[in-house]
């Protein structure tokens, strides 16, 4: 076997020096993430909330749900910011700042766990539907359609009613409402990717279907799902609040939770808007953090978007 003479010398100027040469997909993505100010902002916000959730008891100046100043709360007024109480008093007489810090724990943990659960189950269904052919697709997608036909809140209420009122029931309830979203999204992306040239090329090389689905189609289809997961993190935080509003959230009233704080602030909104402002802001900023990080991650992982 003779060797073809090289037609292009290795020093060809066309090849240039590629700063990304030899890096793996995830290492390259990490490098691009670190350079992206939006990613850094998102990561800092997420990190801050995670740290607050973990170290809430150390950071908070007062105990959770202390009700130390309950006597100062009247029907028409709630004490605002003052010395000792950075953000004022909540309507039950506890320190608002401390309650906010404790609230991070509930909202973020339930939000993250339920989204991860929804993502994993939804992705498995999506891979089954998008990768195993038309018949499996039919069956799986009809199941997903049934899930989707039940309003998500009603589904969540039913699940909490069946499983009992505790935080795990809330997680499963919110996750099950997210499953169809992830399943449909991943299936759709995988089906469109399955029609692309590189899949035809891989098929023409005699690769197994499993290799093509897991090694080629899936990695190219994950981007939108990752972005969707970060967006869902913020909606999950809000759903935790919605379930609390209906009295189906965490059964222990001593556990602080942003959604419930927001609900409690409703009837005092005219006189004490700060009661709604701070929990609302906390939800918005944590959601923003996840969204910024997710968007940046998508950009970093998208080979087409690389400069």
């Amino acid at each position: 076997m003779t060797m073809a003479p090289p037609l292009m010398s290795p020093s060809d100027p066309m090849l240039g020096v590629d700063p990304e040469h030899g890096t793996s997909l995830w290492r390259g993505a990490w490098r691009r993430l670190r350079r992206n100010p939006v990613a850094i902002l998102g990561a800092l916000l997420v990190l801050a909330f995670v740290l607050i959730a973990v170290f809430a008891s150390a950071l908070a100046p007062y105990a959770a749900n202390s009700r130390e100043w309950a006597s100062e709360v009247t029907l028409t007024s709630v004490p605002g910011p003052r010395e000792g109480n950075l953000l004022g008093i909540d309507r039950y007489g506890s320190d608002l700042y401390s309650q906010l810090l404790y609230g991070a724990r509930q909202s973020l943990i339930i939000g993250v766990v339920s989204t991860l659960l929804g993502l994993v189950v939804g992705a498995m269904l999506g891979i089954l539907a998008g990768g195993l052919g038309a018949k499996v697709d039919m069956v799986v997608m009809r199941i997903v359609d049934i899930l989707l036909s039940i309003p998500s809140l009603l589904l969540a209420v039913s699940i909490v009613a069946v499983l009992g009122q505790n935080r795990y029931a809330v997680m499963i309830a919110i996750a099950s409402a997210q499953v169809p979203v992830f399943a449909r999204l991943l299936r759709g992306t995988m089906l469109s990717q399955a029609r692309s040239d590189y899949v035809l090329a891989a098929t023409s090389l005699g690769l197994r279907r499993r290799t093509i689905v897991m090694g080629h189609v899936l990695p190219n289809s994950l981007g939108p799902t990752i972005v969707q997961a970060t967006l869902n993190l913020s909606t999950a935080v809000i759903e935790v609040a919605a379930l609390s509003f209906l009295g189906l959230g965490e059964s222990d009233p001593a556990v602080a939770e942003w959604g419930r704080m927001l609900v409690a602030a409703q009837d005092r909104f005219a006189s004490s808007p700060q009661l709604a402002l701070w929990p609302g802001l906390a939800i918005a900023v944590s959601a923003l953090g996840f969204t910024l990080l997710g968007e940046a991650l998508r950009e970093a992982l998208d080979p087409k978007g690389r400069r």
Partner: protein
Amino acid sequence: MTDDTIGGRGVNAPDVVRRDLSTEALLTVRDLRVEFGKKGQRPTTAVDEVTFEIRRGEHLGIVGESGSGKSVTSLAIMGLLPATGVRVSGQIMFDGEDLLAASEKRMRDVRGRDIAMIFQDPMTSLNPVVTIGTQISEVIRGHRDMGKAEANERAVELLRKVAMPDPGRRMKEYPHQLSGGMRQRVLIAIALANEPQLLIADEPTTALDVTIQAQILEILKQVVADTGTALIMITHDLGVVAGLCDSVHVMYQGRVVESAQRRPLFAEPRHPYTGGLLASVPRLDSPRGQPLKPIPGSPTDVLPWTQGCAFTPRCANRIDTCTEKTPALKIEGQRALRCFNPLTLSSAGGATP
């Protein structure tokens, strides 16, 4: 005059004719017919009455314009046409086995190991999120019992064979880091990974720069010559055929209209369509400023083959018979021709290959 004048591509082929070809057919396609259509609709015939054979080590060209059925023919050989909405009939015998009757599992073994294919667009035919090295080695390991390290070594060797600069470094890179020409080299390396007996190249140079086209053809020619691989070159470019192929089949609207060895076909095209194709190629020996002679009309001006000759509306040689009955593919010596009123030598304006 050399091959260089046709198409002006500068592809030298001094060794094409001198190669020894075995007499045994490697692939025989007989009466291949491919119809597309949904249930209850009248099917559209994309390919009909396609018959040819290729021997080991032979280079065969299939020439035709867009929609002439050349890509569909290659997909049918590979068994890559969708399972629904397509009807394939006829016979595709590969090494004594009818591929149309083979199971999907059997076809998966054949694909990539015995028959491989190079696609037209190197920009989209590689997976963007998988490294070059993985994409080559997984094809090797998919068909052989080979360890990762060994497969990687072989992948580097393959990249070296297709004249890829710095192959070791390229292994860890992603397709977007390579130019179009380099990606096509990778695709050639992948196609040759398991030393297939037959390589189908579906317009491998169409999406590339003209300067890169010649390089890629040269590489392709070298690697198939080294391994004794039979090659089906699907193209619309007669320059590519002139530099590479032993025999040529010209297709028009799904049927072969003329087949012959390369030399007689270029020297004396008999079908008016072949003649038109050759006359429309720019030639180095034509006087300065002489306009090119295009084939009048467009590929959409067709008569269904069932009513007559599909080329009639664009044909300068048409006679009444052309619209009255369907011409059959007649074999005259070394040549097969589907025409009622073929060109004679004087009117053909042939080119010397």
